[in-house]
């Protein structure tokens, strides 16, 4: 096991880009390699040591054996764990844009908040965010109709707008509240939201499942009432309680399902 610890000593106002510092690429790096490494910042590269104290302990023969610990406010460090396929990254603070984007395996834990695009185009692995995230969590690249296709995102705080846009697989679990258009254009996969939702979940969804335990603001006209279900089972998971099930979005001939907690959304009954 190799433990790489980066401790922030100076925060850059211009974001650092960490796409080259993933377990897949650094598993065989020694401390000196990190000290010689220049990190992209804007249109330049500056020594990593300008920003971090670096500790490397142990050895790794493959990315699986790497644990990267990022201590401090990483709110200006983009692309943490981007495209990683194995190993573990723990961020003890906030993370900037594209945290866990395109990741294929391994695990990322963010103990603070994550900026937008967390888990964009994720294909596998696990992304756990203890705080909140902003827009486009678990989304696709702009223009692509194939979004996140595997893995799991767990969000302990709140989600911003357009959560799971174009979701094509995998699972997103939000423990807090969620803003507009969760699961927009989704074609597969599962979104569970424990908190309240402002409006329009599942806009233009073609398929997949959305379950909302909290209160919903505005429902789209594209959703057609199906039935009241008690203790539904979705994607192999069972949920207790009474839910209103809708199908939609019929605007796109969608066959998705939207489950709405009946107790909290009596006006829809």
């Amino acid at each position, binding site marked *: 096991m190799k433990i790489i610890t980066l401790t922030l000593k100076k925060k850059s106002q211009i974001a650092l880009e960490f796409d080259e510092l993933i377990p897949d690429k650094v598993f065989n790096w020694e401390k000196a390699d990190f000290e010689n490494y220049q990190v992209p910042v804007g249109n330049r590269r500056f020594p990593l040591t300008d920003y971090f104290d670096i500790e490397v302990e142990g050895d790794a023969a493959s990315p699986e054996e790497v644990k990267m610990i990022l201590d401090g406010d990483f709110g200006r460090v983009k692309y943490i764990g981007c495209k990683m396929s194995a190993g573990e990254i723990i961020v003890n603070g906030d993370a900037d844009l594209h945290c866990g984007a395109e990741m294929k395996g391994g695990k990322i834990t963010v103990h603070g908040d994550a900026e*937008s*695009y967390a888990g964009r185009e994720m294909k596998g692995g696990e992304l756990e965010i203890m705080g909140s995230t*902003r*827009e*486009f969590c678990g989304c696709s690249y702009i223009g692509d109709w194939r979004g996140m296709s595997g893995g799991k995102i767990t969000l302990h705080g709140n989600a*911003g*707008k*357009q959560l799971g846009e174009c979701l094509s697989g995998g699972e997103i679990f939000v423990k807090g509240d969620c803003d507009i258009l969760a699961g927009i254009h989704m074609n597969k996969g599962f979104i569970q939201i424990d908190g309240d939702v402002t409006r329009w979940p599942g806009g233009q969804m073609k398929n997949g499942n959305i379950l909302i335990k909290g209160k919903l603001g505005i429902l789209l006209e594209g959703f057609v009432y199906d039935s009241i279900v008690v203790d539904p089972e979705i994607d192999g998971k069972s949920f207790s309680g009474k839910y209103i099930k809708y199908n939609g979005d019929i605007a796109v001939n969608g066959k998705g399902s939207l489950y709405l907690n009946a107790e909290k959304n009596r006006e829809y009954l």
Partner: protein
Amino acid sequence: MTYIEKPVVPKVVKLEEPTATERKILDMMLNTGSDIYQGACKKRGSTCKDEYRKVCGVAYMDPKDMAKIGVSNWDSVKVTTDWGEVTVSSVHSRDAPHEGTIFIPKGPWANVITSHETYCCCDPTYKGIYCTVERTDEPVLLMADLMRAVYKKYVEDEETIPELKSLGEMPVYKKK
């Protein structure tokens, strides 16, 4: 040569409004956007002049809303949002009735109070912002004075801004 001194605005003389009660502050929805007077003045390049203040530094309001806070055409109102506050002139909207919303043409005055939130869509939220509107006695600033007072880029001591001499209606720079 200028075409207009200020936009032509309707004047609703008689206000039939049995339900209106006088209010100090109105909770409103703010929209901003282009307007033909604003566009013409901006692209002619007359932004330093009083004319620009008259076409951009205005809030088009429903006459009923104006009656509620007791303002008439060209009186000052203070508009406040989560993003800032600005003093503009209130005028009767030619698109009324639209009780509960105000329209400020895009320009430096509107900018102070619009939201820069893009929600990752690159575009700020210029429309549909909650605001409050109240009567004020403060004057509406000319463009150059407004830019100085709000952004303070070349001001040494911010405290002195209210006492500084107006930059006026013509460009100020040192000729060779």
